[in-house]
């Protein structure tokens, strides 16, 4: 087996071969793997992920996110914080007012992307996120997070094309089904700054809140919303949830069962407000039929995570066409338990 030190010489030969080899290997990068980083960036594969961002179509107002908070619930390290937007009357607007992601906590796991039913949140591939501050600078707010669909198409062409096709198919299906409804609702109409539909002074017989009543602006807004939504029957002053759903444009269709019933009664559904607690909502439906009771048990976000809106899901359960009582994600265990209780009460379980 040769002389002592043969192994050493062999090793030296390998090192020398590699040393020389790098000079002849600039094209294939078989041996030479160093990138001169800030000047030269390695190409990123399409799947590569860094932090999440929110997609919008056209203008930033037409964001796809409906603030259903599913991603907030599912995010493993709990680094998402969402507050749903409301108009001055306290009506939920199906869009986030606050959407924060703490990127010092985010573990880039992509679970928010996988669970979002609306294709609203996607993974970016921008990894240069260093900041000087340790606290506030590392929290991304809604304006930082919003990026256009074009940008998404640019960084992840294949994936974005598939998503676009899927959304288009959904929209077409919706257009076909919703012929009875005015399909002309402008999709990109910004919801928040829209002129307040029907101020509290309009129709006769409407209860108005006296100017000198001892309420803060916030309480006043909530109360106004509550009253107009049908606490007292008036002639269609309430902005029904369906109308809101139409203005935001992007929500998937309610299923067929849901369509006929989804027209809100003139007064709207007073319990259809995610701001109310479960017991408050149940108080409002004490004397109502089963479907209303079931609906009041939902989380009232109309997030479609169950495949319906809140009304549709309740109707489907009441009609017996849906048997899974645990589909309401934002409502979590509370809703599931309540639904079971209500069904038992009604003798249907």
């Amino acid at each position, binding site marked *: 087996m040769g002389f*002592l*030190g*043969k*192994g*050493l010489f*062999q*090793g030296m*030969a*390998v*090192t020398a*071969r*590699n040393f020389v080899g790098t000079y002849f290997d600039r094209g294939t990068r*078989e*041996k030479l*793997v160093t990138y001169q980083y800030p000047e030269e960036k390695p190409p*990123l*594969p*399409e*799947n*590569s*992920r860094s932090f999440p961002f929110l997609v919008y179509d056209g203008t930033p107002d037409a964001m796809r996110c409906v603030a259903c908070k*599913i991603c907030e619930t*599912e*995010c*493993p390290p709990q680094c998402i914080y969402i507050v749903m937007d409301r108009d001055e009357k306290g009506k939920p607007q199906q869009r986030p007012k606050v959407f924060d992601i703490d990127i010092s906590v985010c*573990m*880039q*796991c*992509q*679970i928010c992307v*996988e*669970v979002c039913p609306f294709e609203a949140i996607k*993974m970016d591939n921008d990894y240069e996120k260093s900041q000087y501050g340790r606290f506030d600078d590392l929290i991304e707010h809604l304006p930082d997070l919003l990026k256009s669909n074009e940008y998404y198409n640019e960084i992840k062409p294949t994936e974005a094309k598939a998503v676009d096709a899927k959304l288009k198919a959904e929209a077409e299906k919706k257009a076909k089904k919703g012929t009875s409804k005015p399909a002309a609702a402008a999709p990109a109409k910004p919801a928040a700054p829209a002129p307040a539909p029907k101020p509290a002074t309009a129709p006769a017989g409407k209860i108005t809140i006296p100017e000198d009543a001892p309420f803060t602006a916030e309480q006043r807004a909530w109360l106004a919303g509550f009253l107009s939504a049908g606490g007292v029957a008036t002639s269609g002053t309430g902005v029904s949830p369906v109308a809101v759903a139409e203005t935001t444009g992007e929500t998937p269709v309610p299923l067929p069962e849901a369509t006929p019933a989804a027209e809100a009664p003139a007064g709207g559904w007073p319990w259809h407000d995610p701001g109310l607690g479960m017991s408050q909502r149940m108080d409002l439906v004490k004397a109502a039929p089963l479907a209303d009771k079931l609906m009041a048990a939902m989380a009232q976000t109309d997030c479609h*995570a169950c495949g319906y809106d809140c009304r549709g899901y309740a109707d489907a359960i009441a009609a017996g066409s849906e048997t899974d009582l*645990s*589909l309401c*994600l934002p409502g979590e*265990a509370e809703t599931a338990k309540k639904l079971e209780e209500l069904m038992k009460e009604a003798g249907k379980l």
Partner: protein
Amino acid sequence: MIQQISPIPTGMIETQTIEVSIGPQHPSTHGVFRMDAVLDGETVVGLKPVMGYLHRNHEQLAERMTWLASIPYTDRLDYFNSMTNNWALCLSVEKLAGIKVPERAEYIRVIVSELTRILNHSCVIGFMLQDLGAWGTPLLYAFREREKILDLFESLSGARMMCNYMRFGGVRVDMTDAMVAQAKDIVAKFPRFLDEFEQLLSNNEVLLARCQKVGILPKELAINASISGPMARASGVDYDIRKVDKYGVYGRFDFRVPLGEVGDVYDRYYIRVLEMRESIKILNQALRDLPAGAFVAPEVKLRNFKIPPGDGYGRVEAPKGELGFYLVSDEGGKMPYRYHCRPPSFINLTTLEDMCLGHKVADVVIILGSVDIVLGEVDR
């Protein structure tokens, strides 16, 4: 346990043992890990591993979140081998929930796991030689090869190390033809690198002198201490979960389990070289037979995933040894009632003292290197 073994005949010179703390911030402890060594001159007469500096409460965290949400956390256990970690958890959950995994997903899992094994073993050898004093060269050669595998993992899963790739009932994204070609390319070129690596190392006189007959782990002790993985096989214990359990589709591949004779550091080095060669064999077969079809079981829901009450233990042959998860689900079933992780490097580390006693303090470093620990997994 500290023994007073004095190699110097009594009556000649009065000597005292001295306690030295190696680590927790020491380049050769592979992370934040401390060894409390008692030395008599240069000889180790006692050694106590001190761990827990990197404890992150993985098990308790997992009991507070959904089944799905713990998958990305398993990436952070043994951060070199996130693919096998994912697989271990998914396998346990699938066992517990009775989920059937589609063929293609099983093959993809085998492919990524064997690539992970190659990646891990080549780096371990690099690190071990780094500890021996071979600064840089072998490690960087290993890293160069690892880089190619990580590139594939990035285009497949989106991340180089924290892959978060597997899901209950399959994998998250499909392997495209381009990626299969890339994998085939890596596999085809790897034996050449391995030959070169062996030329550089296997007959090197310095390596032989430093590694042979150092840190011997007897077969009986390996069995009694429940050592697993390459370390047990280097001591001659014929135990490979891929052969014993035949989980996934491992039963279909033709490969051998290399065994060591002496159980010293050199055997532990060489067993890894041989295992890489066997992995190449498995990869060649898996890439050849990769069937078409679904890559994830369609009936498994992402949200609202629930498991009926029960318990189960699933284990895989991770590159470092037997990685298993013991899971208990109670009524509700949204999150585990109990979640226990059996980490191979933690259990392999328990024999450190037995291997080190009587050796010089410089040998402790390579003995530790040959155990192959990752502190993310030891401390969890």
